[in-house]
C-alpha cells in the first residue's frame, strides 16, 4: 500500500509550499544588474548590435540560429510602420530597459518578464559574436522569472492584488533553479579538472596575464608558481564542491562565502565585474535567502499554489 502511494507522495513533495522570497530576490536583483550593464555598454550598443555596427546585419545572420528572432528580425517588423532601423533599435532597447525596470519593481511581472526575456534573447542572438557566459546565464534565469510566479512578493502592486496567502511557491520551482545553478558550477569545475592547466597553475597565470583580463601587473607570479597553482586547486574545490556542499545546512554558509570569495577574486583580478555580480546574486538569492515560510504567512497558508500560474 505504502509503495503504491510513494509516487503520489513524491509528486506532492514537489509542491510543498516554500517562501517566494528567494525567487523575489532574484526578480529584483537580476533586472537591476542587467539595467546597470545596459547603461554601462549603452554608448557601444549600436556598434555591437546596430544594422551598421562592426558586423552588419547581413553578416550576423550567418552566425546566429535562424529560428531565434534577433534584433534585426524585430526591427524589420517595424519597418512597414515607417520606423527606420536605427529608430527601431533605440525603441526596442528602450522597451528592454522598461521591461527590466518594471520586472524589478514588480509591475505586471509576467508581462514585464516576457518583455525583458524576449528582448534580452533578441540582443544576445543578434550579438552572438560578442556574447559570453554571463549572457547565457542571464537568459536562463530571466526565463525562470518568466515561467515561475516571481511576482508574489516584493512588488509595488496593491495588497489586494497580492494577498498574503500567495507569498509562497511550490518548492519544485526553487529546486529546479538551485539544481541548474549546481550543474553550472559542477560542469565548470569538471571541465577545468580535465585540463592540466588548472592543476599546475598555468590557467590562472594565463588568465591574469591576458590584456583583456589583466587588472594588475602580476608578472611576479611566475617566480612563485605555488600561488597560481593553489588558486587553481581552490577554484576546482569550490566549483566541484558547490554542487554537493551548498545543500547541507552545516556547510551552506561556508560554501556561499567560498563562492563569493571566488567571484570577488574573479572581479578583482580579471575585471569580470558584471559576471561576478550575477554569480554572487544567483548564489545569494537561491541559497542564502531563507526558503522557510514566515510564521504569520504559514498560519494563513493552507493550499499550495500551482507551479505555473
Amino acid at each position, binding site marked *: 500500500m505504502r509503495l503504491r502511494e510513494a509516487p503520489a507522495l513524491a509528486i506532492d513533495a514537489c509542491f510543498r509550499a516554500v517562501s517566494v522570497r528567494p525567487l523575489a530576490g532574484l526578480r529584483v536583483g537580476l533586472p537591476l544588474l542587467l539595467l546597470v550593464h545596459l547603461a554601462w555598454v549603452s554608448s557601444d550598443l549600436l556598434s555591437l548590435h546596430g544594422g551598421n555596427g562592426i558586423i552588419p546585419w547581413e553578416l550576423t545572420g550567418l552566425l546566429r540560429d535562424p*529560428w531565434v528572432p534577433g534584433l534585426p528580425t524585430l526591427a524589420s517588423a517595424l519597418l512597414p510602420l515607417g520606423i527606420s532601423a536605427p529608430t527601431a533599435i533605440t525603441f526596442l532597447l528602450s522597451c528592454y530597459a522598461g521591461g527590466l525596470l518594471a520586472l524589478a519593481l514588480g509591475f505586471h511581472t509576467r508581462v514585464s518578464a516576457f518583455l525583458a526575456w524576449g528582448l534580452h534573447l533578441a540582443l544576445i542572438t543578434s550579438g552572438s559574436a560578442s556574447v559570453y557566459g554571463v549572457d547565457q546565464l542571464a537568459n536562463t534565469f530571466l526565463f525562470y522569472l518568466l515561467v515561475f510566479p516571481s511576482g508574489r512578493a516584493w512588488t509595488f502592486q496593491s495588497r489586494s492584488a497580492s494577498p498574503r496567502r500567495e507569498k509562497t511557491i511550490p518548492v519544485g520551482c526553487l529546486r529546479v533553479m538551485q539544481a541548474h545553478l549546481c550543474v553550472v558550477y559542477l560542469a565548470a569545475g569538471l571541465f577545468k579538472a580535465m585540463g592540466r592547466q588548472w592543476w599546475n597553475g598555468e590557467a590562472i597565470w594565463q588568465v591574469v596575464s591576458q590584456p583583456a583580463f589583466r587588472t594588475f601587473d602580476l608578472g611576479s607570479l611566475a617566480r612563485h608558481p605555488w600561488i597560481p597553482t593553489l588558486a587553481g586547486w581552490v577554484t576546482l574545490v569550490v566549483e566541484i564542491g558547490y554542487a554537493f556542499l551548498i545543500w547541507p545546512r552545516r556547510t551552506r554558509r561556508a560554501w556561499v562565502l567560498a563562492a563569493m570569495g571566488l567571484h570577488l577574486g574573479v572581479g578583482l583580478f580579471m575585471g569580470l565585474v558584471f559576471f561576478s555580480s550575477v554569480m554572487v546574486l544567483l548564489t545569494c538569492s537561491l541559497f542564502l535567502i531563507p526558503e522557510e515560510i514566515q510564521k504569520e504567512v504559514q498560519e494563513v497558508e493552507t493550499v499550495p499554489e500551482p507551479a505555473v500560474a
Partner: protein
Amino acid sequence: MGKRLLLVAAFSCHLAVVVAGAAELTTRLDGPVGRGLRFYDALSGAGDSYSFFAPSVGPQFQARFTLSTPQGARSEETLETGKSREVGLRLGNLTGEIYIVARRDDLRRAFLGALAANRLGAHPEANLVQVNVEEWVMPTMAEHRLGARPCWRSLYEASFVRTSYEATFVRTSMSRP
C-alpha cells in the same frame, strides 16, 4: 494530480536537458530532435555548456588597424581603443569569432571587409586601412622565468582602400600558428 504530474514531468525533462547540455551532448545531436533541443536551449538556456576557461584557457584575439591618409599620415588603433573593459571583452570575443569565421575562404573577405569599412567610416580622412587579426601569445611561467615575454602574433592581414562608397579589398595574407 494530473496537472501536478505533468508539471513534475516538465521539470524533470527540463533538468535532463540542462544536464545533457552541460555535458555537451545536445550539440552532438542531429536531425529534428537536435534542432528542437537547440531551439529550446536558445529560448531557455537549458542546453548551455559551462566550460568557462576550460579545459584550458583559450587565446585572446584583437583586431589592429593601421590607417593611412592620402597625405601619408599613419595611425594605429584596435577595436578596443577607448572602450570600457566590458565592451573591450565583448569586442575581443567578436574578433575571435571573426578569426574562426575567416578560416573559410568565402567568408574571410566579407568579415575583414566589414571591420575595414567600420574603421574607414570612423576615420573619413583615411583612404587605406590595413586590418591585422592577432593572437596573444603568452609564455608559460617557466618560459617567463627564462626571459620569454608575451607578444601579439599576426594571424590574418588584409588591406582595403576606400572607393566612393565602400572599402575595396586589396590583398590579404595569412600566417598559420
